[in-house]
C-alpha cells in the first residue's frame, strides 16, 4: 500500500497566550486563501500550540512564516468513524490492541457526510498506517481535506 498517501500534513504554531494572537494566525491563513479544516489548541499558562489541518498546507506554512510565526510541519493520520454512539470507542480499542503509541489526537465532524474524523499523531506513523489499514480502519488522505 501507499503509506505516504495517508500522511496528512499538519501545521503547528507557537503562540503566546496574548490577546489577538489566535486571530492573527487564522487571519494570516485567510489572507493566503487557506481554509482551515480542523484545528486544536493545547495550552499552558504561558503559551499555546495551535495545530491545523488545512486544504493548502504549503500556502498556510509560507503565510505563517511570512508573518513571523514559529511554525512546524509534521504528519498526522486522519481516520473516519461513523458519527454514532460507540464509534470512537471501537476505534480506540483497535488502536490499543495494536499497541500504537498516541502522542495526541483531536477531532472534527464533517456535517456533509455525517462522519466524524479523528486526527491522530502517532509516535511511529508508518507502522500505524500499515497496521490500521490491515485492520480495515477507514483512513483518509489529504484529498479528503481538499474536497470538503
Amino acid at each position, binding site marked *: 500500500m501507499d503509506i505516504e498517501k495517508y500522511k496528512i500534513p*499538519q501545521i*503547528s504554531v*507557537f*503562540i*503566546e497566550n*496574548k490577546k489577538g*494572537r489566535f486571530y492573527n494566525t487564522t487571519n494570516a491563513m485567510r489572507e493566503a486563501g487557506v481554509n482551515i479544516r480542523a484545528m486544536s489548541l*493545547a495550552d*499552558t499558562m*504561558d*503559551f499555546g*500550540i495551535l*495545530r491545523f489541518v488545512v486544504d493548502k498546507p504549503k500556502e498556510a506554512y509560507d503565510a505563517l512564516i511570512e508573518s*513571523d*510565526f*514559529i*511554525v*512546524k510541519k*509534521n504528519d498526522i493520520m486522519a481516520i473516519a468513524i461513523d458519527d454514532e454512539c460507540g464509534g470512537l470507542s471501537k476505534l480506540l480499542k483497535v488502536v490499543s490492541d495494536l499497541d500504537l503509541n498516541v*502522542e*495526541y489526537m483531536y477531532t472534527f465532524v464533517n456535517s456533509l457526510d455525517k462522519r466524524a474524523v479523528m486526527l491522530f*499523531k502517532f509516535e511511529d506513523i508508518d507502522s500505524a498506517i500499515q497496521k490500521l489499514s490491515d485492520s480495515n480502519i477507514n483512513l483518509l488522505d489529504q484529498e479528503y481535506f481538499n474536497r470538503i
Partner: protein
Amino acid sequence: MFWNSREEEMTRDDIEKLQLELLVRNIDYAYENIPFYRDRFDEKGIKAKDIKSLKDLQNIPFTTKDDFRNNYPFGLFATDMKKIVRIHASSGTTGKPTVVGYTKKDLETWSNLVARIAVAAGVTDNDIVHIAFGYGLFTGGFGLHYGLEKVGASVVPASSGNTKRQIMLMQDYGATVLVCTPSYALHIGETAQKLGIDVHKDLKLKIGLLGAEPWSNQMRKKIEERLGLKAYDNYGLSEVMGPGVAGECEAQDGMHIAEDNFIVEIINPETGIPVEDGEYGELVVTPLTKEALPIFRYRTRDITRIKKDRCLCGRTFARMDKPIGRTDDMLIIRGVNVFPSQIEEVLFSIEGISPHYQIILERDGALDKATILVEANANLFFDEMKKQRQFMDRINAELKSALGIEITAKLVEPYSIERSEGKAKRIIDKRKF
C-alpha cells in the same frame, strides 16, 4: 600588525618606569590646575615627591562618578575652555551626565590609541569601515571615527538607526569592517537574514570592532556566525578617555590595555583594597597622558580581571578579560549576586537559543521572582507539549545549577523583545523595595 611597535613591545620594567614618571608628573599637574584635587591632596597629605613607587598610588583616594557630578559641568578640567576643543558626555540614567573635555593634544592621543586597537584587530588602510555607533555626546562614534581615519581606512559614518538602510550601505560600499555594539551587530545579522541577504556572498565584512556594552564569548560566536566576520572586543569609558583604553588582538584572548597611557588596578568593590593578581574585581583606571582631565583612580564599576602573561601576538601590555558585568548591574536575586552575563552564558550554551533575552524581576510576596524571556524559534519549538516542557525544564535546571537560584525561562514570540540600536535593555526590574 602593530600600530606603535615601540610602545606595544615595551618590557614590564620600562612600562612601570614610564607609568611612575607620568603619575608623579600628573599629581603635580593636577595639584596646580584642579582645585578639587588640590584640596583632596592637601587633605590627605599627598605630594608628588612622596610617590616613590607605583604602590604609592594606593594612597590616592578614588575618583567616582559622583565627583564628576559634584563638579558639573567643567569643574574637573585642568585647562581653561580656550584650550578645550571637544566635549562629550555620558548618558547618566539618573541625575546629571558626566561631562568630559579634550584638548587638541588629547584628541591626538585618543585617535592614536583607537588606531592601535583597530590595527591590533587587523584593520588596515585598505578597509572600508562602517560605523553604526551613534554619533553625538557618546564617545563611541567620534572615538572610533577619528582613530580609523588615522589608520587610513575609508570611514562611513553611518551612525545609528534604520537598519535596512545600514545594510544597503554596507552592501553597496563593500564595508569590510563594522563598528557598533554587540547587540546591534546581532540585530543587523538578523535583519540581513530576513531581507534574504547572504552575509557571505552579498557582504564583505571581515572584522567587527564591537564594544560599549558587556557581552559573552557565546554571544561573540553567534555574531561571528551571523555576520561572517571575526568580532573583536574593545574597552573604554568616557571618564578616562573613551574607546581605546583596551582592545583585543588577533589572539582574541583578552584586551590589551594601553599601559603607556593608563594604570589599571583591580580592587575589591566593597573594601577598595586591590585583589590578588588574576582575581576578579572592579577595574580602576588612572589616565596618565590626559591634558584636559587628568583624573586619578577612577572607579569604572566594571568587574573584570587582568592577566600579565605573554600573549601570542607579542604585545607586552597586560590584558583584561571582557567585563563580566558592572557593579551597578549586579542583581541581587533572593540574596544571591548574579550578573546578567552569567545568565547569558547559560542561555547561549543551549543549542538553538536566540540571542535576544530579557530578565524580568518581580516581587512575589516577600520573595523575588526572576523570569527570563527567551524568543521562540523553530529550534526551540516542539509540536508536542511533553517535549516542550522537557526543554523548558532543562533550561531552568541549567540556570539553577549555574546560578544557585530559581529562575524561570519563558518562551515568547519572535521579535517581541525590543531591539536596540544602542545598548540592549536586558533587565526590567519591577521590584519595589
